[in-house]
C-alpha cells in the first residue's frame, strides 16, 4: 500500500537552521494494517506522514502508494489524496464553512461528488462518527464542543472514503470521553478493513490501537515491529524518550503472580484476564 524507500529530507539547507528532518527511512505499510508511529516531539513523526499523500517530497529516496511513484511529476496527487486521507493535528482549526454539512462536504466535493452522492457521503461519514446527521448538518461547526469539532473534522476526511486513514495526534486536547469515543471509532474502522496510521506520543493509546509500532528518533526509524515486542523491551522505549504504557507495567508485575497471564492491550482486558487466572 504505502512504501518508503531510503527517504531523506533536510530543512533550511546551508543555513544555521539546517535540520535533518528525516534520515534514510524505509518502511512498508500493508493493506488493512494498523500502525502507530511514535516518538518524542520533533522526532520527525509528523513530517513522515506528510510523505504518505505527497504533501512534501523527499530530497532523496522514493515514495510509493499502490505502486504509484509520488516523487514523479506524472502522478496525479489528487487520486493519491483520495486514497490516503490525512487528518492533521488540531484539524478543527481548518474550519471555514458556515454549516457542518458544507464543512464535511468540502473534501468529497473536491473529489467530484455532487448531489445525492455527496449528501450520502456526508451523512454516512457523520453517522459513522456517532452523530445524528439531520440534527447537526445545519449547525455552525464553530459552535460545537471540542470533541464534536474533532469528530466533524475527522468526518470531513472519512467522507472522501479513503483506503488509508492517517491521523496526526488525533486525541490531543480531548477530554476522557472524547478520547474514548475516538479510539473506539478508530479501532472499529480498522477492524472493518481500513488501513490505519496513528501518530501519537501517548503510549497507552498506541498499544490499544495498533499491533505494529514504528518508533522515530531524530528523524531516523529506530524500531519497526510488533507492539508487544516494543513495549516489553524497556531499554528501547526509554532510549526513544517514551514511557512504557501503564497496562504493560501492571501486566509485568501481575505476571509474577500469574505466570500464564496473556499479554493485554487495555486495562479492561487485563482485569478480565486476572479474574480468569484467579479462578
Amino acid at each position, binding site marked *: 500500500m504505502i512504501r518508503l524507500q531510503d527517504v531523506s529530507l533536510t*530543512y533550511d539547507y546551508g543555513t544555521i*537552521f539546517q535540520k535533518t528532518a528525516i534520515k534514510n527511512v524505509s518502511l512498508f505499510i500493508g493493506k488493512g494494517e494498523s500502525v502507530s508511529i511514535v516518538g518524542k516531539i520533533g522526532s520527525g513523526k509528523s513530517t513522515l506522514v506528510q510523505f504518505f499523500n505527497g504533501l512534501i517530497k523527499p*530530497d532523496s529516496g522514493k515514495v510509493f502508494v499502490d505502486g504509484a511513484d509520488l516523487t514523479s511529476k506524472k502522478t496525479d496527487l489528487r487520486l493519491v489524496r483520495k486514497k490516503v*486521507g*490525512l487528518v492533521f493535528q488540531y484539524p478543527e482549526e*481548518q474550519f471555514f464553512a458556515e454549516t457542518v454539512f458544507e464543512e464535511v462536504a468540502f473534501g468529497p466535493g473536491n*473529489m467530484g461528488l455532487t448531489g445525492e452522492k455527496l449528501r450520502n457521503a456526508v451523512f454516512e461519514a457523520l453517522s459513522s462518527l456517532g452523530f445524528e446527521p439531520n440534527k447537526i448538518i445545519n449547525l455552525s461547526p464553530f459552535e460545537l464542543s471540542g470533541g464534536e469539532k474533532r469528530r466533524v473534522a475527522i468526518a470531513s476526511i472519512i467522507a472522501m472514503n479513503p483506503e488509508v486513514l492517517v491521523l496526526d495526534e488525533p486525541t490531543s486536547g480531548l477530554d476522557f470521553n472524547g478520547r474514548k469515543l475516538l479510539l473506539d471509532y478508530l479501532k472499529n474502522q480498522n477492524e472493518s478493513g481500513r488501513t490505519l496510521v496513528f501518530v501519537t506520543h501517548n503510549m497507552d493509546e498506541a498499544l490499544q490501537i495498533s499491533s505494529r509500532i514504528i518508533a522515530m528518533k531524530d528523524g531516523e526509524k529506530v524500531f519497526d515491529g510488533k507492539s508487544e515486542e516494543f513495549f516489553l523491551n524497556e531499554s528501547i522505549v526509554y532510549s526513544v524518550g517514551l514511557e512504557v504504557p501503564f497496562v504493560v507495567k501492571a501486566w509485568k508485575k501481575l505476571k509474577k503472580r500469574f505466570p500464564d497471564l496473556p499479554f493485554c492491550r487495555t486495562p479492561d482486558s487485563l482485569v478480565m484476564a486476572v479474574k480468569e487466572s484467579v479462578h
Partner: protein
Amino acid sequence: MKTKFALGQYNYTNSILHRLDPRVKISLVFTVVIFLFFIKTISGYLVLFAFACMLVFLSKNSIYAVFRSLRPILILLVFTAVFQIFFTPGTVIFHWRFVKITGEGLKLAAYISIRLILLSFFTFILTSTTSGIELTDGFEALISPLKVFRFPAEEVSLMISISLRFVPVLFEEAERIMKAQISRGAEFNRGSLVKRAKSFLPLLLPLLLNALSRADRLAIAMESRGFVIGKKRTKYREMKLSKLDYVAIITTVFVFIVALMVREIV
C-alpha cells in the same frame, strides 16, 4: 531541499557592526540614504561603493547573501534603467529606426542604478546586523521625542515588534492550513481567476479566525504579566553609546564629505 520561510536577512553572528547601537545604525543609514541623492559624480559613488563593500566585509556577510538581497529590486532596477536609457532627451549617440539612445540617458541610467544598488546595500547591512527587537527598540528611542506632541511612541513600537514577531508564525500557520486543505482535495492554482480567488477562502478564513483568537490570548497573557498601556516600562537591554558608535558616526560623516567633495574623474 526545503527552505522554511525565513523573514528578514538577520545574520546570526557577532561582528563589529552587530555590536553598534541600533539607534546609531538606524539614523546613519537613514542619513546615508537621503544624502545619496545629493552626490552628483561617479567618483563620489565609487567612494561610497568602496565604503559599502568594507561594511559588508565587517558585517561578516557572505557575498552570496549580498547578491541575494538585491534580487527583490532587480526588476525595478532593470525597468528604471531601460526607461532612462530610451526616453531621456539629449545628444543622440545611437540611432536605429525609432530607438534613440542619448548620452544623458546612459548617464542618468547609470546614476539611478548605482543609487538603487547602494540604497539596497546599506539597508541590507542594517537589517543583517540588527535583530528585529533591536530595530524596534532603536526606532522607539528615536521617535520618543515625539511624545512631547502626544505621539504614542511606545505603543507604535510595540505594534511594530508584535507584527514582526508574528509574521513568521502566520506564514507557518498558513502553510499548515494549506496542507490540510490540500489533503481534503483543495487546489489553489487551478481554474479561472474567480475560481482561484474562491479557492483561497478555505485558507484565509481559518487563518483570520486563528489570528484573532491568538491576539486575544496574547492580550490576556500580556495583561497577566502586568502590561498596562501607557505605563512606563523598563528595558532589559539598555542602549548606551560606546566608543565604537562614535567611531562609526565620525567615519560615516567623513566618508560622506569625501564623496561629496571628490572631483569627477570621467
